[in-house]
C-alpha cells in the first residue's frame, strides 16, 4: 500500500499558533458584567449579517464560513478536539488531498456530523473546502469549484 507522507504539505505543528494545546488555560469566565464593556453589549454589524437568515449561512468567503460554522466543532485552529469522542483535526489532513472527500462530508455529513446540503450553496462549499486545503499548514491548490460540488450533490 502506498503511504503518502504529509510532512511536505504542512509546516509542522510546532509552527502553528498553539491554542488547542493550551486548552486548560484558555479560561474566559467568570463572564461577569465587570468583564464586559458596554460596547460588548451592542449588536455588531457582522452579527446582523451572520444571523440575517436562520436557515442558510450568509457569508461567502471560505474563511468566514469556517469561522461561523466548522469552527463550532473543529475549533478555530483546525486542530479538532478530544473528549469522550473526538473531532478530527485538519492539520496535515491527508483526506484533503482530494477536494471530493471534504465536499462529500460537508454535503452529506459523516457519522455524527450533519450534512449541510440545504444550508450551503455549491459555491460556499467550494470556498470552504479551498480554505481547508490552504489553511492550518495545508498547502494544497484552492481548485475546488462550484461545479465539483454540483457533481457530488445528489
Amino acid at each position, binding site marked *: 500500500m502506498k503511504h503518502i507522507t504529509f510532512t511536505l504539505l504542512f509546516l509542522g505543528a510546532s509552527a502553528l499558533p498553539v491554542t488547542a494545546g493550551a486548552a486548560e488555560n484558555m479560561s474566559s469566565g467568570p463572564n461577569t*458584567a465587570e468583564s464586559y464593556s458596554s460596547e460588548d453589549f451592542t449588536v455588531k454589524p457582522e452579527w446582523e449579517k451572520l444571523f440575517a437568515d436562520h436557515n442558510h449561512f450568509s457569508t461567502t468567503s471560505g474563511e468566514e464560513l469556517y469561522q461561523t460554522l466548522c469552527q463550532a466543532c473543529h475549533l478555530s485552529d483546525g486542530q479538532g478536539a478530544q473528549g469522550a*469522542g473526538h473531532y478530527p483535526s485538519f492539520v496535515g489532513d491527508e483526506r484533503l488531498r482530494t477536494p471530493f472527500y471534504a465536499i462529500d462530508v460537508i454535503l452529506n455529513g459523516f457519522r455524527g456530523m*450533519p450534512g449541510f446540503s440545504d444550508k450551503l450553496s455549491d459555491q460556499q462549499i467550494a470556498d470552504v473546502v479551498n480554505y481547508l486545503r490552504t489553511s492550518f499548514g495545508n498547502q494544497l491548490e484552492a481548485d475546488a469549484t462550484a461545479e465539483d460540488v454540483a457533481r457530488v450533490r445528489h
Partner: protein
Amino acid sequence: MTTSPFLTRRDLLTMIGKTAGASAMYSAMMSMGFAKASTFTSELELSDAPDGDSVLILGAGLAGMTAAYEMRKAGYDVTILEYNQRPGGRCYTIHSGDTVTDLSGETQHCEFAPGNYINPGPWRIPYHHYGVLHYCKKFGVKLEPFIQLNYNAYVHSSKAFGGKPKRVREVLTDVHGYTSELLAKATNQQALDDVLTKEDTEALLAQLDDWGHLTDDYKYQKSLKASEYRGYDDWPAAGLMPKPSPSEPLDFKELLHSGLWGMLLDYFNTSYQHTMFEPAGGMEEIARGFAGEVGDLIEYGRKVVRIEQSDNEVTVHYIDPERPDDVMTRKADWCVCTIPLSVLSQIPVEVSPAMREAIAAVPYASSVKTGLEFKRRFWEQDESIFGGVSYTDLPIKAISYPMYDYFSDGPAVLLGAYTIDDATSFTMSSMTARERVALAVSYGKQIHPQYEEEFISGVSWSWHLSPWSLGCYGLWTEELREAHYDTLCEIDNRLVLAGEHCSYIPAWLEGAILSGMDASKRLHEKATATARA
C-alpha cells in the same frame, strides 16, 4: 354591505398559506417524534435473572441508570462505566459555583448567587411523559410546574411593530378575532354554502362571534369585549379610578406578515401543553434521584474505547482519560450500551456490519443555551411576567423566565438564548461562551431594555462542544429510521443499545427512559432463554 378596510383576496390566500405552513410544520414535527405521548404504563417487574449473570452498562445517563435499576431488580450483577465524574449525562444543570470546560478548552465559572442555576439541556417535562414522572415520584424528585404558555410573556419580531414586543394575549386574541372575521365574511358572502347547511351557518356565525369577540356586524375591532381577552388600556379598577377602556388591536396586515402568529405554535403542540413540570433545583435533580438508587453501581472517569464480544461474554476496553495509555478491560455476560451515537460511531464495536452502519448513520443536532443572571426580577417587577417563555425572531430565539421563587428579591437567572439546529445555532456555537453571553445581552435588551443595567453574569453551553455527547440529540429522519432504526435497536449477540437515539421520542428524557426499559426487558428475555437452552 360594508367591507373591512383590510380584507383583500390576497390576504385571505396569504392567511390560508400560513395556516397550511403551520400544519405542514406540525406534521413534520410529528414525524420527528416530537409530539408523541409515551407508552409507559408501569415499571418493569423482571425477575429470576440467570444465576450469576452480569451486565455492563455503558453510560450513566437516564437510559443507562434506568437499565441499571431494572436489571439489578431482576437479579443481575450490574456495573455502569461512565466517562464523566457525575451521573446524568445530558440531564445536567450548571449550578452557582460550578466550573465547566467545553471541548474548546474554554472554562467558565458560574458566578450565580447561591441556589441559582441554569439547565443547559433538558428543562421541561410534558404531563404525558409517564416514565419520567413515575421515576421522579418513586425516587423522591420534587417537581414544580413549568410554565410554557404565559399570556403575559412576549412574542417579538424585530421587523414588525417598531421592534416592540407584543404580549401573547394580544396576538392570540387578534389572531382569533381576524380569522373569525374573515371566516364570518366568507360565510356571509355564501362562499361556504356548498359545505354548510343553513343551520351550520348559523351555528358557525354564533361561535365565530364568541370566539373572535366580534361586533354585531361580525367585525373584529377595538372593544371591551375583545379587551377581556387581549387586555385593556385601562384595566377595570374601583371607585373613581379610570373606567375600563379597550385596547387597540394590532394592525391586521402587519400582524399577518410579522411572523408572530407562527411563534404561538410552540405553546400549543402536545409536547408543550400544560401541565408541564420541572424538578425543583434543576434538571440534574432527576439524575441525582436515579443515582440515589443506582449510584453505588457507577464507576466514574471510565472512557470506553472498544467493545468486543464472543458467544460467551462481552469485553469492554476503557481508559481513565487522565492516563490514556493504560487500557483496562472489564468482562460481563451482557452489555447495555447507552453511549450517544456521535461518540459510539468512533469506537470499534464488535457488531454486525448492518448495526455498525446504523450506529454511523445518525447526525447530531446543534444547540446552544445561555443563562443570564440579573440583579433583580425586572420581568416580574416591571412587566408582570411570572415564568413562561417569550419567543423572538432575533438570534437568541427565546427568553424563559424562572418558574420558581416568584417575588423574591435579589439576583435571578433566566434563559437568555436557546437555539436548535439551524444556521444560527451553528454560528452561535462557533463563538466563545464569553461572546455568546454578550450576544444574549445585546439582543435580549431589544426586548427587555433593563438587561444592560441589571446584568450580573452569564454562562453559555454549546452542545456540539459538550465533551461527552458531541451534540444535542440524534437527528433522525423518516428515511434514516426506515433504513436503520430496527437494526440499531436489535440485540446483537450479547449487546443491546439504548438511549434517546433508540426511541421515537428523541431529544426527550422519556425516550431515554423508555429505551432503557425496553432494552432491559429484551435482554432479560434473551438471557433467561439462553440460560434455559
